[in-house]
């Protein structure tokens, strides 16, 4: 066995291969020390060395679920790479599961933090994620289908769903698409999203990423399917509607009126962030009569020194704010606040005083930037962030009426989108959303 393995892992010096001998049985052993944890000592080395008892050792080999027969030499490299130890005793090979896991407790939510909801988030370890999910969605009907994707990374994937509630056609479609996945290194859910969506250049995400186990549990109860990926702290949810992206878990936890208020505010914010810069151009350059007369004169006065047409002004400010946002992701935390102060406050103030932009434009930019972060889902927020540029382009050419027409076109586009066969802009979840209530009543 060792010869074969050494041939396969030529020059892999971190592979440990040795023939041990306790004076009774010789044993060939091979494993990657970096990928295995301390369990190898208790599981193999101690029973083999000073506590050795041939009968007991044999019993252990047959009864301990961590030991498995590994007769097929083709599987050996795979097992070794997954953190198993291979041993060969009396001409039979066994594998011993001893993979190292770095994660022993759930992560803290980072992107979808909630005030009073659960604070735990998925980790980068698949097993722990499955545990987190089972803990929250504690029913025997929760099914897990394992997959392995990525020709180089060989990433483990769990497809999780409640088999009583799931829509079989969605599941069928998912399986088909998963079969087609052709990728070398699968490292994040984002890659899988690209592989799973049929069209590549969509403006809106049709799959939802979430780091919150409670959100995934709620979605499972609505008959949705979750896809967990080893090494990614996000779960994929499908099929989803646009309104799922606008839903924060706090909406379920807060009192009725507060959550309604927050939801309405969120949609207003989305509308503002999409339309406001475009509306600024449209109103300032095409239809100033939409403003109240005071505002028209104030803007007129503050724009008097601005040398460029309104859309250049908008592009200057939006470039600054986008650069600022992008920079603040990369900046180290200690410098971050300084950069935002310089960028946001000083630069904005200076740009206005220098007469490069009007004072109203500073307000427009800030409203756009703030409103964009009201959206609870990061992917969706990015999509919206991009959307406003279409509106700016169209308002440069057609003014306010262009914005109205494009908004209509946007709604048409959203209606045309499908998420795993389900309509994207459905107001009510259709079959899937009503199912859980009836199913719960039955059980």
């Amino acid at each position, binding site marked *: 066995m060792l010869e074969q393995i050494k041939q396969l892992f030529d020059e892999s010096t971190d592979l440990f291969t040795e023939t041990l001998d306790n004076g009774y049985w010789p044993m060939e052993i091979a494993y990657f020390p970096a990928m295995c944890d301390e369990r190898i000592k208790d599981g193999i080395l101690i029973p083999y060395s000073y506590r050795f008892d041939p009968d007991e050792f044999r019993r252990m080999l047959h009864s301990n679920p961590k030991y498995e027969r590994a007769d097929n030499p083709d599987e050996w490299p795979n097992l070794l790479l997954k953190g198993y130890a291979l041993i060969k005793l009396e001409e039979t090979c066994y594998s011993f599961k001893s993979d190292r896991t770095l994660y022993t407790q759930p992560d803290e939510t980072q992107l979808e933090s909630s005030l009073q909801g659960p604070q735990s988030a998925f980790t980068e370890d698949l097993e722990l994620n499955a545990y987190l999910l089972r803990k929250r969605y504690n029913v025997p009907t929760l099914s897990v289908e394992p997959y392995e994707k990525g020709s180089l990374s060989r990433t483990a994937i769990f497809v999780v769903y409640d088999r009583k509630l799931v829509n079989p056609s969605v599941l069928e479609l998912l399986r088909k698409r998963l079969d087609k996945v052709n990728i070398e290194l699968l490292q994040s859910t984002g890659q899988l999203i690209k592989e799973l969506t049929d069209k590549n250049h969509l403006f809106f995400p049709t799959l939802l990423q979430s780091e919150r186990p409670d959100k995934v549990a709620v979605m499972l109860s609505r008959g949705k399917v979750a896809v967990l990926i080893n090494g990614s702290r996000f779960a994929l949810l499908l099929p989803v509607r646009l309104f799922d992206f606008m839903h924060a878990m706090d909406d379920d936890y807060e009192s009725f009126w507060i959550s309604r208020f927050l939801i309405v505010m969120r949609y207003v914010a989305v509308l503002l962030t999409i339309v406001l810069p475009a509306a600024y151009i449209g109103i300032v350059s095409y239809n100033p009569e939409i403003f109240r*007369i005071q505002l028209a004169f104030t803007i007129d006065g503050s724009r008097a020194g601005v040398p460029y047409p309104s859309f250049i002004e908008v592009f200057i400010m939006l470039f600054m704010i986008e650069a600022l946002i992008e920079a603040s992701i990369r900046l180290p935390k200690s410098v971050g606040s300084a950069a935002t102060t310089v960028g946001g406050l000083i630069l904005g103030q200076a740009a206005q005083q220098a007469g490069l932009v009007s004072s109203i434009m500073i307000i427009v930019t800030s409203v756009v930037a703030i409103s964009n972060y009201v959206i609870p889902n990061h992917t969706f927020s990015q999509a919206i962030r991009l959307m406003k540029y279409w509106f700016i382009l169209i308002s440069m050419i057609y003014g306010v009426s262009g914005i109205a027409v494009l908004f209509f076109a946007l709604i048409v586009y959203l209606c045309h989108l499908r998420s795993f066969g389900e309509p994207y802009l459905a107001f009510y979840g259709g079959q899937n959303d009503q199912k859980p209530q009836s199913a719960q009543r039955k059980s």
Partner: protein
Amino acid sequence: MISKRKIIGVFFLLASVTLILGGCGFKDIDKRFFVVAMGIDPGTRKDLIKVTLRLAIPSSKIESGEAKTELESLEAPTIAEAIRRIKSLVDKELDFGHCRVILFGKETLENGVRESTNWFLRRRDIQMVAYVGMAEPNATDVLQLKPQSERYPGNSLILSFGSEGTESSFILTEYLFDWTRRLAETGTDGFLPVVRVDKDKNSYQIDKVAFLDKQKLRLCLNATETQLFNISAKKFRKSIISVPIENVPIVLALSSVRTHIDYSKGEIPEITLRLRATGMLEESPSKFLNGNNRVIEQKIEKAFNDQVETLLYKIRDAGVDPYGFGLHYLSTYFGDHKMWERWKSAYPTIKFHVKSRIVIEETGLVE
């Protein structure tokens, strides 16, 4: 993929083509000259019209008395021509989007009004909620005034009308849409508030109303009558009824007004105007008439009825119908086109009855 690219290409082509075809719709706000008020006067020659534009010079600083405006006036055969000529006098594109006040000079209205109104209707950039008024003695003089309290160009005149700024019972508000409707509608006639320059040359004096029939100016009311008209026709709440009872001035501040018009059947219909007004005594000696409110009410009612009746007869005799009695009559009585002819012949001799019900809700915060 190719077809998709084609579609995108065609889209951008169409967009750019329509951009060229669209002409110069794109014009930044600071390249526009906002017209805040417009005046129409007769020209020096008979075939000319004098158009006066009050143009706003905006500033980012808004302070009372700091508002700057520019006045441009020009005579031309038509308004449209005058506007085009004025465009050559100014450095920025004229924008009528914020033209909220349109003033007709008194003389224009005496000559006839329809032609000049036409232009305002056809232009889509003139808002139909613009206020219309009659300027006395002429529009140019009134527009020249720059009140001290003006915060931004034209704001003083705009705030005077409508319910945005001051709400005076002497100021009637007439919008462009209502004005054109009244010019076209059978059985109702237009009215215009009369804007004059105050004696101290620092504010506008708007306390009269002018009545026009379909052709020209017919009647101007004085301030007291204007208020009566505002109460009885417009049901204006924030007004007062002032009647001397036994030589003691009594003033009732109204809080609600309701009116109802009845027509009697007959060859010459008689009109009964029922009016119910509630309010509070603002001026009255304490323990007046032993504090018997009903007696005071009845005395106010009687005097008020007389005042309104006199006003109605005065308006009737001028041959105008700003109350819209004719329209009301036509709409409530079944009949053919002869009905209107009958009404027209009957109107000069028609009889009015005013039956008011005054309710003193409270006597104010007095012991």
